[in-house]
Structures are given as C-alpha cells and as structure tokens.
C-alpha cells in the first residue's frame, strides 16, 4: 500500500513543484519588466517623458475611467470591431464553403486568396476612405476585409478534411443542398470556424484601429493619437493597454464560447495569415 501511495505521489509532487516554479518565473518576469521600465524611464537615456513611470500610467487609467468621453470612444470602437468582425466572418464562411465544396473552384481561387491574405490590408484604406467616408464606415469595412481571409481559408481547408463517407451518406439519402450544409458541413466545420473566428478577431481589431489612427474623429485609436499629439504619453499607453486587453479578452471569450473539441488543436498554436 505504502509503495503504491508513493508511486502516485511522486509525479504529483513533481507537477506541484513545476507549477510553483512557473509562478516564480512569471512573477520574476513581471518584476523584471517593471524594473527595466522604471530604470529606463529614470535613466535619462530617452527623451524626457517618453517612458513615463508606471505611477503616471496608473493615474492616467484613473483619469480615463472617470471621463465620460472615454466611454463614447470605447463604445464606438467596440461597435466598429464587432460589426466588421461579423460581416467579414460571415462572408468568409460563405466563400470558404464555396471554395471547399467544389475542388475545382478551390484550385482556381484559393491561391489568389492566399496572396491577398498575406497582403497588408491597410493599403486598401485610401480607397475605403473615399468610398465610405471618414466615419465608422471606413473602419468597419477595413475590419471586415481583414478578418474575411483567415475565415475563408480556414473553412475551405476544413471542408476538405470532412470524411468523404459522410458526404456519400448524404448523397445516398438524397439530402437537399440546404440539408447537407446544415447537417453535414456546419457540424464538421465548427472547429475551423472557431479557428477563423479567433484569428479574425485580432486582425479585425487591428484593421479598425489602424483606420481610426489614420483618419477619424472618434474611437480609442483616435483618442490614443490625440494623447500622442499632446505628448501625453501616460494616457496614450493607458489607452493602448486598454486596446490590448480588449483584443485579448475578445480572443479569450471566443475561445471559451466556441470550445474546440478534442486535443488535436492543443499542440499547435494557430496563427493568423493576416
């Protein structure tokens, strides 16, 4: 009995030790980062105020949260990201299905999609600005274009991995096209769609914020640029941190709601072909 207990205990203790060290590593990294930042800021190596003390950044946070204008900017940015994300992702699913279902259309169009996917989307912004104006339209459209590609490519690749047997069963049961989409494709495509959503959210955020930075009157990107122009670096950094948190939170929530089944996705990290 004792021996068995010992056998079970050893790996557990080892795991505990590792998890303790992990915490230590993380704390050390954070402390180091914090110390480096403060030292760099106080060293005088950089132009005065470029690397503000964390105390100032914390104060900027407090000021922002007490300012009603901040919530307006926040709301507008969130609106742009969500609408752009929904439009781009939905189009991505449709196009991905079209490319995946028919092998030939896939072979013809997918390389073009791949090329465009690795093109910096911001180059389309000047056109979008003339087309949709300097308001939310140009931001939503750039966000939508950005997240369209990872979704389309992910879904197209996903369709091809569907077990052909399911498709044959569908054919032999004489299912209509709509039925096949609903009962075979969609369930099988949930994991690639989840991947597309997670990749897309981050770059939809980038798309919306880049166009806010370039030309706008509202939104967090605009507010950050205003702070930069006033040389209010603490506020600018606070806003950037809020934007990063927003992107991270969105990614996390999508990951939670669209749970990836099976351990297959655990080992590989999915990265966007921006």
């Amino acid at each position, binding site marked *: 009995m004792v021996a068995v207990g010992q056998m079970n205990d050893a790996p557990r203790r080892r795991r505990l030790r590792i*998890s303790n060290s*992990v915490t230590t590593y*993380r704390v050390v990294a954070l402390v180091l980062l914090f110390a480096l930042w403060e030292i760099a800021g106080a060293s005088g190596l950089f132009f005065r105020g470029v690397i503000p003390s964390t105390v100032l950044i914390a104060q900027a946070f407090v000021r922002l949260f007490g300012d009603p204008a901040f919530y307006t900017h926040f709301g507008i940015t969130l609106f742009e990201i969500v609408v752009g994300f929904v439009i781009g992702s939905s189009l991505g699913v449709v196009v991905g299905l079209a490319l995946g279902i028919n092998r030939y259309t896939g072979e013809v169009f997918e390389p073009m999609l791949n090329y465009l996917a690795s093109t*910096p989307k911001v180059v389309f912004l000047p056109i979008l600005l003339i087309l949709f104006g300097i308001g939310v339209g140009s931001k939503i459209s750039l966000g939508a274009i950005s997240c369209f590609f990872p979704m389309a490519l992910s879904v197209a690749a996903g369709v091809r991995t569907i077990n052909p047997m399911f498709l044959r069963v569908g054919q032999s049961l004489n299912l209509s096209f709509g039925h096949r989409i609903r009962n075979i494709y969609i369930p099988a495509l949930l994991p690639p769609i989840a991947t597309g959503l997670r990749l897309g959210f981050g770059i939809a955020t980038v798309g919306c914020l*880049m166009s806010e930075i370039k030309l706008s009157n509202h939104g967090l990107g605009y507010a950050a640029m205003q702070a930069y122009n006033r040389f209010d670096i603490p506020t*600018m950094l606070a806003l950037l941190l809020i934007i990063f948190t927003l992107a991270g939170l969105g990614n996390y929530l999508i990951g939670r709601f669209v749970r990836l089944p099976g351990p297959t996705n655990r080992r590989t990290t999915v990265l966007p072909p921006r």
Partner: protein
Amino acid sequence: MPTWLIRPEPIYARFLFLGVLLLVWEFASLAGLMSRFIVPPPSEIFPTISVLFSDYDLTGSFLRTFGETFAAAGLGALGGILGGWWLHHNRVAGAAYTDWMAAIAAAPLVLLFPLFLVIFGRNAATIIAMGTVASLPPVVLKTKEGLDNVRGVLVDVGRTFGLTRWQQVKMIMFPASLPTIFTGLRLGLVFALINVVGVEYLIGFGGMGLLIADLGDRFEIAGMYAAICFVILTSICFFYLTEKLETWLLSAR
C-alpha cells in the same frame, strides 16, 4: 464542348477570371456605373506604372520596403529561434511563457508604433523594430512547437548511437522540426511585411506605404491603385519564394 474549355487548367482559369474581371471593371467604369474618380478603369491604371517609375521612384520605394521587411524578419527569425529553443529546453520557462507568447502573437502590436516613434525617432529603425516585434512571436511559438513534437524515439536512437548534444540538435532535432519552424519563419515574414507597410503608411515615412499614402493624398487615384498592385505583387513574391524554399529545404533534408 471539349473539357479544356469547360474546365481549363486552374492556372489558365485564374488568368481568364482576372481578364474577365478587368474587362468588366473597364466597361463599368467607362459606362459610368462606378465613379471614374474613385474606381478608374484599368486602361488608366496601367499606363501610370511608368509614371510611378519615372516620377515617384517606385524602384527605390519597393527596394526599401523589401529591405526593411527582410531586416525585420531576419532579426525576428534569429531571436525567435533562440527564444523558441529556450522555451523548449527549459520546461518551466516553456510552461510559464508560451501562453504569454501566444497572447502577444494575437495582440495588435502594430498599434505600439507611437511609442517606438518617440523612442527611436522617425527613421528606418522604428519601422524595422516594428516589423521585428511582429515577426518574433510566431517564430518563437512554431520553433518551440516543432522541437516539442520531435518524436522521443528519434531522440533515443540518437542517444544510443552516442551522438553528442550538438550532433543530436544538428542531425535529429533540427531536421525533424524544420517544417514547423519554417511555417513560423514564413508567418514571421508575412507579419513583418504587414507591419512594415502599415507603419510606413501611418507615419508617412519609408517605402511602399508612404508611396500609397502620398499618391492618395495627391488624388492620383490611378497611380495609387497601381502602387497597391505592387504591394500585392510583393506579397505574392514572398509567398512564392518561401513556398519554393520550403519544398527545396524539405527535399534536401
């Protein structure tokens, strides 16, 4: 009808599609279905390419963006492979920082450019630094993933053959993880290109990004479309080259 007419080879079909698209575009623009000012017809866009070369130093802009991207991706590759190796080698560090790296990879890093601007100034250093920051995380993650996934059997075989640690790395670990690492390098290159052009466009400095911003600001819309085509061409070049390099590397392994 013969099959080559119904289903031509994909590559021909692609060109056919592009040709039809350009024709439709041309006629829609000429017929006034689309504003000619916003969407000029291709027959106006293509002639501007020569103007871009003669008046706007397209070659210089192109080379500049290319160079900055390669510098950034190179730095990112170097740092990323070292970082990935460390995260693989030191298991605690791997457990502690891999998730962080994944979060950083998904973060909108390009938005940090104002901070880089005030630190490095308005010069190529800022742009290369922005590109490096973007290309680093995918290389780190993919390197670690590649090394982690090398099958234990292979490593054991190496050990039984009495290979030194360095030999193990060179002859087993590295070749076995190469495809995954290469995916990381490729992503790193794409991320670097995207950030380089993005920052060039936003701060109005450097190569192709600046050129597009400048043409747009002068309402040289046709020229702007041509410049955009060149950026797409750049990413096609990168995509194609890395694809070829990958097959070559994998066959030479």
